[in-house]
């Protein structure tokens, strides 16, 4: 299972994945990325401080704190504590200068691969003005300052500067865009209503998107991050699938067939919307061709079919069906062909989500009467339970790098949103406000 976070996690991995492009185009199964590097070690990285470059005292500390958490969450780097290694960094603020050579030497000797430092201040120290941030990177492998970044922006984007720098570090060492600037859409309770919100991937800066005073449920991102599709109730009565444009707040109905219309999921190319609808009786799966508006029925079964999730190449769907009694996961071609059951363990398996690398499907599994997170490989050969203990876990959603999941849980009483590493380690709670937060959906990377 530790393989999950290793895949493609360094430059060699990128070459390996790029080499698999031909396979992708030829239509092989989604499990082709299973090739991993069991010898992968996280890259040790130390943050030698973001110094005060003329501004409020909190500024550098804030950026350093956000940056360190991003570095840790990247799972690409191993964040080392420089002080505990005996590396003193008082002069690193002038890291491009000769005075920092001694620090670089020490870092290299102690096995620190990457040293990061910087400076942050107000552009004009005497005024409330733009924030300036500089960050630099020393690489002990090549024994040089490999480069840096200079950012400017309003004080309201200080956290985003740190996120952006963290993503540059991930990009430098993996070729991936990083996840520090991704967002999480979710549902928050307001009285008896449930409204859509979007927050930063670390739980900060939550913004409300809907305010109709009724139920807005289970948002999913469009591949281009500009829209959410979700279930809403017209006239408090009829369930529809709505779409909202984040930049404008414009909202409209895309599916209005009558009956239950739930669990919308856009294909990776945006050309199809898969969803469940009961307008012909019981809940069945359909797909809308978003260009022609043609709707194709995918399942024909007297039981309930729901919760479709696309494979990353768009050729297959995993979904839930209770055709065998309780809910179980099934796979089929995205045209409804070749249906086969995926889960056999336990009597309740639901809410599947296919990982962006294709090699795992996360879902909610019931064990010992508790609803927990599990992952299973698309060939059904490997299965693992990720969470344990009390509380109802629900609505897993993958980070775009496939190294994390976000989900809701009542483990602490009220339903809140949590992040967990894909190997089941390091659970982090993301929401602390409100009475009920649920149905998180992780945005694609920018």
């Amino acid at each position, binding site marked *: 299972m530790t393989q999950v976070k290793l895949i*493609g996690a360094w430059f060699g991995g990128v*070459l390996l*994945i790029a080499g698999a*492009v031909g396979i992708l185009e030829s239509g092989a199964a989604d499990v082709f990325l299973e090739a991993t590097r069991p010898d992968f070690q996280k890259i040790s990285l130390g943050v030698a401080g973001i110094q005060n470059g003329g501004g409020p005292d909190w500024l550098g500390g804030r950026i350093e704190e956000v940056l360190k958490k991003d570095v840790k969450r990247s799972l690409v780097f191993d964040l080392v504590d420089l002080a505990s290694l005996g590396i003193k960094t008082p002069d690193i603020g002038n890291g491009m200068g000769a005075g920092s050579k001694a620090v670089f030497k020490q870092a290299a000797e102690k096995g620190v691969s990457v040293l990061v430092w910087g400076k942050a201040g107000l552009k004009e120290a005497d005024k409330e003005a733009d924030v300036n941030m500089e960050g630099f990177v020393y690489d002990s492998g090549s024994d040089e*300052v490999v*480069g*840096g*970044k*200079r*950012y*400017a*922006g309003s004080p309201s*984007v200080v956290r985003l*500067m740190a996120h952006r720098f963290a*993503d*540059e570090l991930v990009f*430098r060492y993996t070729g*991936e865009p*990083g996840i520090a*600037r991704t967002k999480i859409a979710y549902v928050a309770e307001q009285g008896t209503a449930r409204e859509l919100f979007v927050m930063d991937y670390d739980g900060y800066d939550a*913004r409300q998107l*809907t*305010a*109709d005073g009724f*139920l807005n449920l289970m948002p999913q991102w469009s*591949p*281009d*991050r500009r829209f959410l599709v979700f279930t809403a109730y017209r*006239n*408090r*009565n009829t369930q*529809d699938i709505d779409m909202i*444009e*984040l*930049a*404008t707040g414009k*909202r*409209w*109905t895309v*599916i209005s067939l009558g009956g239950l219309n739930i669990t919308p999921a856009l294909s990776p*190319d945006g050309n199809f919307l898969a969803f*469940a609808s009961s307008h012909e009786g019981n809940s069945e799966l359909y797909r*809308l061709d*978003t260009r022609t508006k043609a709707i194709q029925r995918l399942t024909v079964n007297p039981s309930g079919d*729901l919760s479709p999730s696309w494979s*990353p*190449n*768009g050729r297959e769907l995993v979904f*839930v069906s*209770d055709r065998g009694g309780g809910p179980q996961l099934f796979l089929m071609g995205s045209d409804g062909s070749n249906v086969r059951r995926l889960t056999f363990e336990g009597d309740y398996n*639901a809410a599947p989500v296919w990982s*962006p*690398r294709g090699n795992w499907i996360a879902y909610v599994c019931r064990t010992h009467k508790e609803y927990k997170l599990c992952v299973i490989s698309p060939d059904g050969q490997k299965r693992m339970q990720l969470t344990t203990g009390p509380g*109802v876990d*629900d*609505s897993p959603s993958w980070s775009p790098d496939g190294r994390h999941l976000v989900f809701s849980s*009542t483990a602490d009483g009220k339903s809140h949103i949590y992040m967990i590493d894909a190997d089941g380690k390091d659970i982090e709670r993301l929401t602390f406000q409100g009475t009920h937060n*649920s149905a998180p959906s992780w945005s*694609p990377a*920018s």
Partner: protein
Amino acid sequence: MNKTLCTCSLVLVMGMALIGMPGCSKKSVQSGGDSQSTQGMAKGGSSDSSKSGVGSFPDTGVQPGDGGLRGLDKNPSEERVGSGTMLAKVDPSSSAGRQMDEFRAEAALQDVFFAYDSWTIPEDGRQALSRDAEWLKSNSSALVKVEGHCDERGTSAYNLVLGEKRAKAARNYLVELGVGANRLSVVSYGKERPSCKEHAESCYQQNRRGHLVVKTGK
């Protein structure tokens, strides 16, 4: 560059940009690269769906990009950091215009309660529905909505399906008892509108229900 390919994994995009494959090469990004392109905005998204039940649909596919990152530079020039994904301020008036039908609880109408994971109407539920059917017969103009509810266990999505099964089971039983099907509508609220919010079976019991409400007004 094939759209599908680009969206399959951004790793692919970045990886190919690195090794110089065509189509996904880096392009200069203005304004810190976090602001979203406005190309391909919703093509006339209207607030009402068409009669076919399908509304307008924008292009949501991913255009080839570089994630907005420009890489480290030995002499970095200043990048302006924007506010990230553009988010509109919520406009309550845009939603306030959404018409809401009004329903009222009727003291004489009794809820039907279900067992865990079940949509079979138990004996006491049949008795409750029999009394509800009598009320409906003596209030022959009343339109009733049957709401299906679930307790918090299980997934949101599956509970919506379960809630619909419960609502339909209750409706079908009322129809068997002679209530006109055209007077009965069903809706599922899954586990999203619980009447009781404690994490205990005593509470779960109250939430696994078919709840009857009467339409008011027109």
